[in-house]
């Protein structure tokens, strides 16, 4: 990056590091932090939406719908989530290819599952065999995001269902007494009040979600863990910047990054709790009212 970087072997330590840390591979490493943020930015709202739908479905008066919602939220309990991650990515991939196969090649006669192989017609390959590299990467990332959303959606659903139950019954009864329909009670009374009850659970899930991001590596995404391993591995003098095995230091950097990230999240969430407590019929809201008076 800098002009003096043409021959790193002649540089002193400080300049050597300023060149080393700004070379092309390191910029890819820094970019991969954006992958983490992108994952969080997409996953958090999606899983919240999944969870909201699941929680609303669990409260439904139509039995099959409420069963669906409950089964979905109960599904994730009792099983390590890493199992779900590995499972869903493969299942989604195969399901998409299978559906496209049914649509695009109806007259394909061969079996799809042949022993250890999963063969669909060439048109149904997703992404198609000759697609550029970035399409493959985006597709892989989208699958990963969807998997995260399914798993964390179940957790959000659990929390939101609890929050909906926690809204004082009297509030809903009052709304009904005013002649509101079920739909109106849900949107005008229940939903605005449930967030403060959901917040402790949701912030817990957010923390877990942050700490789940390195698992992207297991799904084959080139994320920060991938680059830390890649860049940290020892380099012989054949390379421009030879160094011994530095993977420990790279992982230390990641550790510090995650510690900082969770700490900042904690502080922001604490503020949000105060903000949402305003005007609520809870101990926190009461304390705010007293402080203001």
């Amino acid at each position, binding site marked *: 990056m800098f002009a003096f970087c043409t021959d790193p072997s002649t540089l002193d330590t400080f300049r050597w590091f300023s060149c080393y840390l700004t070379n092309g591979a390191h910029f890819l490493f820094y970019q991969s932090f954006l992958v983490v943020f992108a994952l969080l930015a997409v996953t958090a709202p999606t899983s919240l939406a999944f969870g909201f739908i699941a929680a609303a479905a669990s409260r439904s008066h139509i039995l099959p719908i409420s069963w669906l919602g409950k089964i979905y939220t109960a599904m994730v309990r009792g099983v*390590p989530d890493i199992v779900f991650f590995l499972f869903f990515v493969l299942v989604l991939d195969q399901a998409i290819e299978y559906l496209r196969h049914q649509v695009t090649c109806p007259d394909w006669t061969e079996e799809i599952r042949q022993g250890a192989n999963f063969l669909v017609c060439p048109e149904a390959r997703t992404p198609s065999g000759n697609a550029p590299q970035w399409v493959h990467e985006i597709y892989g990332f989208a699958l990963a995001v969807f998997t995260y959303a399914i798993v964390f959606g179940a957790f959000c659903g659990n929390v939101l269902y609890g929050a909906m139950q926690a809204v004082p019954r009297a509030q809903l009864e009052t709304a009904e007494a005013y002649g509101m329909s079920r739909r109106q009670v849900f949107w005008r009374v229940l939903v605005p009040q449930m967030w403060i009850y959901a917040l402790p659970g949701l912030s817990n899930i957010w923390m877990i979600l942050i700490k789940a991001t390195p698992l992207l590596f297991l799904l084959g995404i080139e994320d920060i*863990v991938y680059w830390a391993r890649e860049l940290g591995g020892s380099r012989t003098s054949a390379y421009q910047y030879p160094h011994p095995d530095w993977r420990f230091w790279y992982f230390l950097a990641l550790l510090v990054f995650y510690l900082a990230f969770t700490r900042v999240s904690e502080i922001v969430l604490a503020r949000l709790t105060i903000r949402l407590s305003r005007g609520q019929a809870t101990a926190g809201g009461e304390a705010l009212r007293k402080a203001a008076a």
Partner: protein
Amino acid sequence: MTCVEAFNAYALRSLGMGERMLPTADIGFCEQAVLIGSGLIWNVYFGLLALTFGFFFAVALAVAKNQPARLIRKPAEWFIFIFRGSPLFIQFFMAYEAFVMLPRVGIEFTLLGVEIAAETRWFSRAWLGALIVLFFNTSAYAAEIFYGALRAIPRGDLEAADAYGLSGWKKFRRITFPTMMRLAWPSYTNEAIFLFHATALVFFSSFPAFQQRGDALYYANYFADRTFNPFVPYPIVAVYFVLLTLCIIALFGLINRRLNRHLPQNQRPRLRIRPQVFR
């Protein structure tokens, strides 16, 4: 291969006994169920030992975090923050890299009359290295739970202890500790479940599976890669873990009953099982 043959060949495969080669062709249901079950031995090993050792360390950490003296409180706070604030996955990676960097030394010593030749190389093996990481990790999480319980002990109980002339160790052992356990137990049950689930990460992080001796998920992933059919091995793992979780809930439920045996029936806290995801 019949189910009996599969059982004989692979039941202890994860410990290195039985058939050397993993099944490669014609993989039936029995091979998968037996081999994955064999891998579960490692999950139980990691979970049980980390939980047992971690319990005592966690109590010590929680008490340390509750001390007014900065010199004792701060290290405990930092330990808990570092292990709770960072992903277990990264901790595994880091620990492995750190253990690999250790100089290779062997020490011989006698423990209870048995000659043991300990090597630092053991640290980079999963059975010791991953166990240490899990031990520290669960200690930090449990310590936070115990600390919360310590703060929640009713003031009246402690004042009553003072009034009876109890102090120091006696007060801790008779009043503080039992009440702390009683309050913390439901959350601690969740932590235990959580820890057993976290053991599935061991061979997926950097600790290599020596001679393909892996845990349940390691074998499940092996089968999913081989057969390209995730619908058999992963549900098997799921069923095994659900059974393991039920065992933990049953065991911890018994302890919970014992801890609350002095309370009237309707005031006993129920265990609410809310396992969290991972760390």
